[in-house]
């Protein structure tokens, strides 16, 4: 577990060890701030080149940025609202459905990373 400070991370694959800094909350915040900065830069980029577009609406500065943000936020909020009506327990269709079943163990090859 990540909470387990004594976990032996030396046994992780090389690339996994290189990426462990993602476990640190502060580093995740840094990534998020970098994303904010990148978004701001991309928005401003619209003022510094000539757009070759077909539609009037595309010429609006930051059209794609605003459209992407607003529509995605709307998508998630609508989908979340759909859950109120559509969500059922995992075994709703059981036993004629795989959702509540375990995957057959003999077709898997479960192994721990240090095995």
């Amino acid at each position: 577990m990540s909470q387990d400070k004594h976990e032996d991370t030396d046994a992780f694959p090389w690339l996994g060890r290189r990426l462990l800094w993602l476990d640190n909350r502060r580093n995740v915040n840094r990534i998020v701030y970098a994303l904010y900065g990148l978004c701001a830069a991309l928005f401003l980029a619209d003022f510094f080149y000539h757009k070759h577009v077909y539609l009037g609406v595309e010429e609006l500065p930051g059209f794609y940025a605003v459209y992407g943000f607003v529509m995605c936020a709307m998508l998630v909020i609508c989908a979340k609202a759909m859950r109120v009506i559509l969500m059922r327990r995992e075994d709703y269709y059981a036993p004629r459905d795989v959702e509540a079943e375990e995957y057959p163990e003999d077709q898997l090859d479960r192994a721990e990373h240090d095995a």
Partner: protein
Amino acid sequence: MPEMMPTALLFFLAAAILPVLPQYLRALLLLAVPVLAGIILWNIPEGMLAQVGFMGLELEFMRIDSLSRIFALIFCLAAFLGNLYAWHVRDRVQQVAGLIYSGSAIGAVLAGDLITLFLFWEGTAIASVFLIWARRTEGAYHTGLRYLIIQIGSGVILLAGAVLYHAETGNFVFERMQLGSPATWLIFLSFGIKCAFPLLHNWLQDAYPAATVTGTVILSAFTTKLAVYALARGFAGTEILIYIGAAMTLFPIFYAVIENDLRRVLAYSLNNQLGFMVVGVGIGTELALNGTAAHAFAHILYKALLFMSVGAVLFRTGTAKGSELGGLYKTMPLTMVFCVVGAASISAFPLFSGFISKSLILSASVKEHYYIVWAVLLFASAGVFHHSGIKIPYFAFFAHDSGKRPKEAPPHMLLAMAITAFFCVYIGVNPEPLYALLPYEVKYEPYTTTHVVTQLQLLFFSALAFTVLMRTGIYPPELKSVNLDFDWTYRKAGPAILRYLRAVAGASGAYLGSVLSGWAIGIFHRFQHSTGPEGRLAQSWPTGAMVLWIAILLGVTLVVSFLS
């Protein structure tokens, strides 16, 4: 003369000898067959190469032109990659089913007439269900049955349409058709079922997550893209397809956001990607059809890659559910990287394959003045990044740490993912070889400043929306659940109504029966008296009379069905 032999036959012959071979030879054969088929298909000339007379029909097994060739080639590549991914599988049922399935799909793409198309169409249906049943659980058995009924149904509708088409035109040639007559509508409906049109789509999300780890990878490539090919061949430029396709891109993304099973999320996003191709077919211009073919090619690869990476997680942890996963990047970093490559490709990031294929379709929609459709496709592009591009890698490999520390995927799976990822990037960086394979000449430059900047804006602001919603806690968490979709009508509502009707009929039948049985028995006795074995009328009836009457009945049925 390899061109004289239908390519599908190669797969079927291999499937026939496969069961008697030892395991390592079986795995090698599974890799060799698609490579050989691919080399043949790459080199043979265009034309109608294998006509076969069959019961008075001229069947065409090898129609090679630029449209069929690109689909047949990507099917060979997908079969190779899927079989490499399944190198560890020793289950002969899956190996044979995979060969017959991919062979049938290639056969269907190369079919020059509707009867040949029908034969291979049903071949894909019957062979592929074994990839679901191979899971060998009760749920998989029932899911497979539902899948089979719908797939066979599509084939039966195709056959009915083909027969009516013959009555109309006097031939079975599979060329561009005009919607209008019952024949063409039936054929259209049959293609639509396999292409997962809205309300006909549920078999896809139902069945693909129920297949085996490797079966889903193979399933994802063929059936639906065969249907896209059939639509492109038969119904290019049919306007209704534009709106059907736009609806297809739209509604699955809402389900994908709240779905917990990551393989079902991918099935929803597969449905959404098909929508782009269907819009391309509907627009029907050279640019749009190029877009459909290019997108099908790119899509098969990145979708397989995504199913491979999630399948590897399932293979190592026993689950593919977002609510159970997280933090796997620590011990499965390579699988994570390949998943991200697939995610970037489906999201159409510059330098990845989706960027150079999807834009052909969007560009065609603007050029033909379908502005609303364009806006829908743009929304769907942002949406697909949201649920496939971010959600899949995020909930599997990052998010909250599940504490699971599985071993990295086995080498053959990593190799299959690496090759697929290579193609995703290579096509994105260097689209010319793919463009050269397309049905028409390409006059399109994907890498313009405007295109790159606007696409990056769209994607990064979608990512921003995800981040903001995640950090504010608005984003819906992954929950163990199922969501009702249209299949509820035939999995719950339909059976419930039938049970109710049966109960009503049973109760009223019991009452009626007690009243009527007195009469019925009386009538029966009277009939028995006159026509029974000992009866007077039966004395002059030879047994052959019954056979004659059956023959007459069949004859009447035939005449009626022929005339109608």
